[in-house]
């Protein structure tokens, strides 16, 4: 039994973070939530920053930019501290006056501190597509940018 516990501890990642879901499609009323999980054994400081984005039709890569004046993001909180193995849920609502509206909530995590060396800061995206209607919003938004879906 002791060996099993030891194996489980060793098998679990010492450092890891997960965001889920990655995509949310909304209609006019856009509220949602996403979870950020600290899979590791060290505490993490997590911050969330909203941004607008478009997509490069050739490469499919996101092109981020500061949040458009036509978009408003409200969050229940924009930062938190996550203990080992802790999962946290962020609630948000998005209001856009122009559609399609593409917003990303860039969620960054830092852990540890160094007085001599480099600190690593990891960022994962929560992507929100808002249209008149939620159905096919992502596909429609991408088509409008010249992408296949």
């Amino acid at each position, binding site marked *: 039994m002791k060996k099993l516990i030891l194996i489980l501890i060793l098998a679990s990642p010492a450092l890891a973070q997960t965001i889920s879901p990655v995509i949310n499609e909304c209609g006019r009323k856009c509220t949602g939530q996403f979870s950020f999980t600290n899979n590791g054994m060290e505490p993490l400081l997590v911050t969330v920053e909203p941004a607008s984005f478009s997509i490069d039709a050739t490469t499919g890569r996101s092109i981020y930019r500061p949040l458009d004046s036509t978009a408003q993001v409200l969050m229940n909180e924009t930062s938190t501290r996550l203990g080992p193995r802790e999962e946290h849920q962020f609630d948000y609502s998005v209001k856009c006056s122009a559609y399609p509206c593409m917003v990303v909530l860039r969620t960054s995590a830092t852990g540890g501190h160094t*007085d*001599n*060396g480099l600190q690593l800061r990891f*960022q994962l*995206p929560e992507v929100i597509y808002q249209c008149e209607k939620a159905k096919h919003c992502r596909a429609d938004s991408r088509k409008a940018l010249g992408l296949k879906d």
Partner: protein
Amino acid sequence: MKRSLTICFTVLAMILPVFAQAAVTGNTATINLSMSVGESITIAPSTQTLPAFTYAPGAATSGTQTFSLVTTWQLAAGHTAMRSNFWFASATAAMTNGTTSIPASEFFLKVNAGTFSACNFANDPVVTQAVSGATCNAGINYTLAAPFSGTQTDTITVQLQNLPANLSAGAYTGVLNVAADAN
């Protein structure tokens, strides 16, 4: 006669329920099963901090530091791209000891067996508001194909190069940003 009738009724009483059961036509029970697998991205670095570079006084190049990055994704069909990249918040101060700064142009990074390149490129599209001239030119592209889930391990090596001989003494610190993107 009375005894025979009693036996007959007893036997009938025992058999009738069997016939009655046989006459029942049972519906085939179905249980609907469902499972929702949400999209997720996980990044598991080998460390959250890198120790100080080894450095010989007057040298133009430091020792290297390495960390691994395990990226796991579980996405829905339709995604066309997913990638990661690295950047600093300042082009002029990738690392600083409080008085002297090492610019991003002297910070070099490579992924796996790639070649070192400086982190002084213009804004990467993935990185919002990153300062121009502070983005590493060595991103990671992930192969997205059905079933749109997978895992990839990459080794990132960093080094300071082209350092001035008169670099002031002190403990240098900095923050290297690592961003994953999928849309």
